[in-house]
């Protein structure tokens, strides 16, 4: 929907997040950070636990308030949770009391359109993620991969300006994860929503993104930014030498004393 437009630009300006630890100490989860994310691009944040990648994502989503600085979405400062920003969560955040269809319909209820149109869009979204025929199934009866496909359908059905994904495939096995990458890229290429993707998996970041920001802990910050030059569409089975070099470079970076292994 947002193809070749200027919708979905994220400007992160001097954004800083500090927490109070249970002991009362100030913890700098995210040191003052500047970052511009272009409309329609796929950007990854990668790093060990505690590097602030989820904090940054949560701040963009309006889940976590900034201590200082500002984050703008298409020029508008983020002030709280905003339905124009879609989120696919780390844990399965599908509502287990609704069917796959019910979950997708939940997202459509805020639009003033007829029930018939809602149903049509929900069915189409589930078809897009390959869940045709599973519309009336409850999440509890779906595999982990299928549940995250419902989560993708639920978020893409509203054509959000920006999509935030917080290690969405972290709990899946390697093969399912590869399948999910293909589905995600296929849908993303059709919608061209800006995606901010958090992961600690280097291969995942490189397969998916246009650009990967490598982060480090204590305080959480970006230590390097890397453009991924590999042509699209990409597949795990046609990885070039550039990809391998980038991968090794990132792994070495993450091993440095600044960024401790998790």
């Amino acid at each position, binding site marked *: 929907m947002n193809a070749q437009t200027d919708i979905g630009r994220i400007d992160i300006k001097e954004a800083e997040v500090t927490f109070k630890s249970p002991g009362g100490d100030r913890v700098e989860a995210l040191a003052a950070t500047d970052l511009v994310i272009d409309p329609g691009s796929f950007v990854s944040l990668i790093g060990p636990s505690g590097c602030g990648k989820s904090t940054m994502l949560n701040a963009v*989503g309006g*889940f976590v308030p900034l201590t200082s600085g500002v984050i703008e979405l298409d020029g508008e400062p983020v002030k709280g*949770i*905003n*339905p124009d*920003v*879609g*989120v696919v*969560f780390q*844990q399965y*955040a*599908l*509502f*287990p*009391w*609704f069917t796959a269809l019910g979950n997708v319909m*939940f*997202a459509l*209820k*805020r639009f003033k359109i007829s029930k018939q149109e809602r149903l049509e869009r929900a069915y189409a979204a589930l078809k897009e993620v390959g869940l045709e025929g599973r519309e009336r199934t*409850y*999440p*509890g*009866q779906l595999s982990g991969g299928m549940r995250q496909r419902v989560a993708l359908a*639920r978020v893409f059905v*509203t054509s959000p300006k920006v999509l935030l994904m917080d290690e969405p495939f972290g709990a899946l096995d390697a093969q399912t994860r590869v399948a999910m990458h293909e589905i995600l890229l296929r849908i993303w290429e059709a919608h061209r929503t800006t995606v901010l993707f958090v992961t600690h998996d280097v291969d995942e970041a490189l397969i998916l993104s246009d650009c990967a920001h490598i982060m480090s802990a204590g305080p959480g910050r970006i230590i390097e930014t890397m453009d991924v030059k590999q042509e699209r569409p990409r597949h795990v089975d046609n990885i070039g030498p550039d990809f391998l070099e980038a991968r090794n470079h990132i792994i070495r970076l993450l091993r440095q004393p600044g960024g401790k292994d998790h």
Partner: protein
Amino acid sequence: MSEVLKKIGQLVISLTGVVIIWSLFANSGFISQKLFPTPGQILRAAIDLYQDGVLMSDLQISLTRAAVGFSIGASLGIALGLLTARVKVVSVALEPFLNLLRPIPAIALVPVAIVWFGIGEGSKYFVISYTVFLAVWLNTHAGASDVASTYIRAARSLGASKTREFFEVIIPASAPMIFVGLRLGAALAFLSLVAAELSGASSGIGFRLQDARQFIRTDRMFVGLIQLGILGALLDAAFAYLGRRLVHWENA
């Protein structure tokens, strides 16, 4: 289905064993049958009570009291539990008070209830609904306070209004705990029903137990006890079944 048959089989075997041992003991002459009647005598007492029409009318009266008291207590418990868990003002105003009420046993309220409502139905409803209310409130409150933050974040980021968040997320997410409360409340409804009927009633299973004591009719007392046991077990099974059906996603 074979699971059900297996359970019924086990029940039959266990009950047969109990009845045999009971018979042997009651017939052994160690203890007066006046104090410890045989299963046969209990059965005869039950038939007598049935023929007098008392068995069924007691059952009906007690069940009605339990049902009315349960309905009042459960509705208030669910409503207030959701409010104390999700609305700050209500929680500040009521939670400390309700927590102070919790340790007061229902039986202790019977004298107060009789003074307030007389020995009619009012005092029974009051005592039963009070007991049920506390159990249902406590569990609903716990369930609704503890809704996973991912569900709430998901609902808000999908643009749900506060009303939709409440009805489509908070309530279903609390439903498993609400059912725990309802099941517990049903068991407690019986407990307080008997407490209320034992003192200050002129009908019902509890009254019949007390009445039998006056005439040292142990056989009739056992009829009442068995009635309570069967009713309680059936009710518990019904609530467990209902819970599994309505909160189906919990055990998926």
